[in-house]
């Protein structure tokens, strides 16, 4: 595989699932006609069938290893090879219980494969690039030219600058136009948080603390951590502002715009409480909005305050996507922000009212276009960095978001899926995440270690980067920066007929 210019710290290594079984897409049924001859075990190269040494019987098929219907054209296919025709193949009903229209089972499976191998799946039976939501990114396709200029992958850069103001502050460049979203300590486990930061360092990009304070264990990654200042100001101190290169003001979160954050008392363990300087077991609210900000002028005061405290850091402003998001973005630019981060309504969360996730504020696809055009009309587009989040699920979503006008994206759910999140949605209740990703329960938070998680994340970032480079190559581009705002390279499956 041709490689592009990625950081030398990125090392790809197979990192298999923590679990014995994967969620199978197919189901192999063995009928009573089977004579246990073992032909299937000999012929299947994927290990679906096993007959252990000295056993008379063939084991029940291991469904998840099966590559499905495309196998039927191969000479080693168990179904055609079985002398008794005792085997049959169907879709596994279990697969319907995984995923949803936004994150389909194929997309989750595809992301797992990326996290395991570091590359997009070789299987051709998974539609892992687009979801089934019937709108937004899922209706957009790339229009690749027939004869693009020849570009070698080694010439393609996916790096972007985050400081475009030329104001003497840190010239921060990230190597891939993706960074990790804020997930507070308390909402995710420590291994999750540390592996996100470690991966950010490996990929020369960033991760964000979220609003739960800055655990000391993140200190080695200071240059790749964004300190979030949110409305509850939990764990925000002078030293956590001073040690980083980017400080993010979180005004709102796409999943629950206008509602503020809420850490349930059950998840506020002794550790979490200490970090947040709060009392263990109490519910912690981050109110909405900043009670000291009722205008852009107030907002500017906040930004100035941060800039005073840390003379080199960049300031990012994270807002959600109301009708007037374009005005807010321009206001933030005039207030001095380097990065405008817009978080769409379908974005992720550790806990939010269902009614808010579905209904409040617009999906990110519209907001990117709106903000990009408004900043352009204002003559400010070239001096701010526009980052989109909230519903960026795949490398294709990433490239589409950039075509619509973003410089880069922030992801959250995709990172968690790499750590084998199944999106069951129970992050918030009781002991929290049964898969140990979003839990501070001592037993559950121990289900994987940081090394495993870091490699999975590094692999997934690599697969995305690999796909992005491929897309750029097909467009004949040498830099991802050429892709920004190129809506002419997209088509819409309803409108573009």
């Amino acid at each position, binding site marked *: 595989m041709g490689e592009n210019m990625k950081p030398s710290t990125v090392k790809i290594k197979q990192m298999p699932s923590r679990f014995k079984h994967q969620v199978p897409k197919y189901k192999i049924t063995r009928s009573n006609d089977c004579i246990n001859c073992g032909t299937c075990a000999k012929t299947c190269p994927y290990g679906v069938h096993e007959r252990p040494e000295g056993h008379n019987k063939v084991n029940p098929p291991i469904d998840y290893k099966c590559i499905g219907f495309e196998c039927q054209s191969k000479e080693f296919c168990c179904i055609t090879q079985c002398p008794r025709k005792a085997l049959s193949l169907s879709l596994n009903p279990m697969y319907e219980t995984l995923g949803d229209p936004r994150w389909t089972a194929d997309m989750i499976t595809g992301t797992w494969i990326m996290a395991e191998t570091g590359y997009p799946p070789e299987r051709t039976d998974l539609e892992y690039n687009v979801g089934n939501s019937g709108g937004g990114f899922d209706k957009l396709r790339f229009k690749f030219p027939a004869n693009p200029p020849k570009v070698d992958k080694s010439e393609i850069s996916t790096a972007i600058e985050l400081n475009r103001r030329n104001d003497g502050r840190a010239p921060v460049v990230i190597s891939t136009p993706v960074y990790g979203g804020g997930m507070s300590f308390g909402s995710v486990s420590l291994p999750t948080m540390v592996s996100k930061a470690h991966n950010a360092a490996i990929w020369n990009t960033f991760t964000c603390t979220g609003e739960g304070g800055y655990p000391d264990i993140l200190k080695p990654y200071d240059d790749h951590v964004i300190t979030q200042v949110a409305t509850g100001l939990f764990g925000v101190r002078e030293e956590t502002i001073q040690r980083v290169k980017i400080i993010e003001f979180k005004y709102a979160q796409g999943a629950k715009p206008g509602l503020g954050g809420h850490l349930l008392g059950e998840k506020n363990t002794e550790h979490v409480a200490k970090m947040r300087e709060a009392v263990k077991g109490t519910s912690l609210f981050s*109110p909405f909005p900043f009670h000291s900000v*009722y205008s852009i002028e107030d907002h500017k005061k906040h930004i100035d305050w941060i800039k005073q405290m840390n003379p080199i850091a960049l300031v990012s402003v994270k807002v959600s996507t109301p009708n007037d998001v374009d005005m807010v973005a321009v206001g933030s630019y005039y207030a001095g922000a380097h990065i405008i981060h817009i978080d769409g309504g379908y974005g992720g969360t550790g806990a939010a009212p269902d*009614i808010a996730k579905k209904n409040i504020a617009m999906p990110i696809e519209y907001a990117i276009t709106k903000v990009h055009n408004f900043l352009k009309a204002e003559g400010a587009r070239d001096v701010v960095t526009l980052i989109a989040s909230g519903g960026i699920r795949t490398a294709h979503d990433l490239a589409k978001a950039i075509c619509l006008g973003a410089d880069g994206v922030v992801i959250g759910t995709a990172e968690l899926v790499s750590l084998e999140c199944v999106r069951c949605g129970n992050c918030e209740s009781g002991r929290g995440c049964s898969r140990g990703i979003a839990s501070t329960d001592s037993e559950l938070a121990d289900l994987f270690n940081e090394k495993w998680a870091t490699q999975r994340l590094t692999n997934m970032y690599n697969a995305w980067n690999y796909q992005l480079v491929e897309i750029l190559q097909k467009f004949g581009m040498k830099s991802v920066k050429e892709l920004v705002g190129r809506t002419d390279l997209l088509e819409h499956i309803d409108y573009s007929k």
Partner: protein
Amino acid sequence: MPKKYHIHPKVTPLEMEYLYKFKITRGENCINCGRCTKVCIYEAHKRRKGDRRKMADPNTVVCRNCFRCIQECPRGALEKSLHQDFVNISGSHWKADMFLTLFKQAEDGKVPVTGAGYRGPFTGEGFDSMWTDMSEIVRPTRDGIHGREYISTGVELGRKHNHLAFDAEGRLLTQPHPTVDIPIPILFDIPPVQLSPNVMLALIKAASEISTCVILPAADIKPEMETYRANIIPFITEGEIDKYVDILKNARLVAIDYYDALPDKLAAIKERIKNISNAVTIIRVPAISGIEGMVSKLVNSGAEVIHIVADYRGQEINKDKEANFKPRLIKDIIRSVHLNLVEERIRDEITLIFSGGIAMAEHVPKSMLCGGDLTAIDIPLFIALGARLYEEPEKLLLLPDGLEKLSVDIITQRMVNLMCAWHSQILEMMGAMGIREARRLRGETGRAIFFEEIDQETFGKLFKQ
């Protein structure tokens, strides 16, 4: 500051099996190792009570779809699928997930909260094709969840003056019309099925508890309901006015069935009711084609409140049984009726109630943004009690067996819980919008984002050839 409005929830489980989403089956190759009992944090897997050597059947009710048991079973002996019952109940409007969430809200009265982002389709039909706005930084009216105490969901039913009139000396000539205030923009509509006496009483008590009203056919109003007369809206035809004088005497609101000649006789009808009581009159009109004209005629004839009723899926009613009838959806009917009255400059004079297909809390503020003053609901109150609704092959609403034996208090509390959860959800949406008065939601499309408009504005402009 008006008195704060609270609905008091109380956890009230029902001793019955309702729908569940998942089914887990244990294959014959299970070796009873017990790994599943260790990995499941929801206790779906346990050993058999009598024989500890064997595993019990999985308890799927508690399954939260985490896949731990599936993935960790050393033999791959566990299989999971969607429960057939769950798949079967899903209709085009009443989706399977709605039954589960309404049932749960009736149990605890809480706002449904989950982790991870939204999982549904990008957009959908009717109310699913709109989002509500929020306000980001400015607008000092807003205070998020901490300001919710000061958000009023109250609405007023009755006729309003278009303007005030004064005499030559500047004295006010205009007399205000009588109105009825309710603290939540939801009425309980006529029950869609025959109810046993305990359920009927609970429905009325629940309406009373949350200070709203229930619309009941006058024939169903019994003397023992007298205590709750302020919360009952008798529904009659014009011809029945004299027959139900006793009931009308004590009513705050009365609902009258619409027929074609009614607008011309409205003044006389109102007069006859005025002679009996001070009740404000609601005209109940089916949502049929041409509803816009019917409504404006009613407004011009002096109607006070008009209740427009779509079918149970929120669709326009096919009055003339047209063969290729393409029903409009309630969202579009509301917008059209509202805008028509705005054009005619008479919108402010009338109160509009809309009902039919109101299935979730979000439908209430959304129908108000489209132009309604308030809504009326029916089916969700019975889903709260474990009712099932099938749309195909034809509408079938089934109340659970044994409901007639359930205590009035339990049934009442479940309906109250559901309304408590809805009220809190309405507050969430209003809080995000920065709107403190439900009355100001009406027709406030500036705080709504309509799919067809924004999609056209962005993608249509970019990609249409």
